[in-house]
């Protein structure tokens, strides 16, 4: 399963009013290219912090579903962020990690997530639900009800390293993305 297809498949399973914080690198770019919406925040720098940003949104917007689209490199860079999520225990927070055990946007250099199971770290930290899926069918089964049950949850989606053609950069300016997302959060 390509990461771009997995990203699009998860995005398609979300309700229109769900708020998404996407990590930097290819995951945010693929979400932007395949399923842009005002309810998406694309973090283009500050690697590692998507889960912390998503937690902040989830805590102040408790009636909204907040989904963080993250990568293995990002999660590894801010493992403490998982502890912050688990300790705060927001029921509206969902963490979807697209794991290819590589840093996709810098040339697919290896991470260490082939030897370290990120969803097990999340479970040990105190996430309410965690699961790992490895192909489009397993993902489809998980997505039928994943976002209906309370979080914090982590759904780890194992994806391959293939880079899909036709993925653009996130085009709006960072300030425009922030203003648009804030309006979508507070309307």
């Amino acid at each position, binding site marked *: 399963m390509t990461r771009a297809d997995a990203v699009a498949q998860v995005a398609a399973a979300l309700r229109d009013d769900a708020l998404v914080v996407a990590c930097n690198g290819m995951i945010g770019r693929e979400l932007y290219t395949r399923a842009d919406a005002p309810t998406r925040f694309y973090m283009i720098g500050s690697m590692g912090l998507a889960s*912390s940003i998503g937690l902040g*949104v989830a*805590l102040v917007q408790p009636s909204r579903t907040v989904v963080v689209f993250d990568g293995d490199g990002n999660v590894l860079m801010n493992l403490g962020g998982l502890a*912050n999520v688990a300790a705060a225990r927001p029921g509206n927070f969902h963490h979807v990690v697209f794991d290819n055990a590589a840093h996709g946007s810098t040339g697919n250099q290896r991470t260490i997530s082939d030897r370290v199971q990120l969803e097990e770290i999340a479970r040990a930290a105190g996430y309410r639900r965690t699961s790992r899926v490895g192909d489009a069918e397993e993902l489809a089964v998980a997505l039928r009800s994943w976002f209906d049950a309370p979080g914090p949850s982590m759904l780890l989606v194992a994806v391959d390293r293939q880079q899909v053609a036709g993925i653009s950069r996130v085009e709006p300016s*960072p300030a425009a993305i922030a203003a648009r997302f804030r309006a979508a959060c507070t309307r």
Partner: protein
Amino acid sequence: MGKQFLDLLQRHGYDFFTGVPCSLLEGVTRILDAEPRYGYVSAVREDAALGLAAGAYLGGRQPVVLMQNSGLGVSVNAIVSLHHIYDIPALIVVSWRGQDGQDAPEHLIMGRVTAPFLRLLEIPFEVFDAAAIDQQLESLTATMRRTGRPVALVVPKGALDR
């Protein structure tokens, strides 16, 4: 002074609190830890606190991030590649360990460079003055709202310890 300071922050529109503690800010964090109404999130690290603050801002709040000046070091990327470029305002309340070279060895260099470091990172700041703190917050908050970017209040020893 901690309670008065928190009241002032709320009066100036701040309504989300996160950070990593410092003994010089104990007068504030003791109250934040004890009173759930502030919704204080004890962050694992200073850059995670800035990420939390960014999320809270995007969700409609006006955040305050408390930290020791040692935390400025790990905060650099969050400040320049998140808050600054996305125009995400926050008040960073940063203690000034190592001021005047009188402190434990690990604080001396950061204490010496705290002010130039904030200037380098393009963060407008004031040094806490108990006699003028209301006006200082007024001015910092006005700058923060005008620029849409973080500002800092640098807190020397003795200002908010209790």
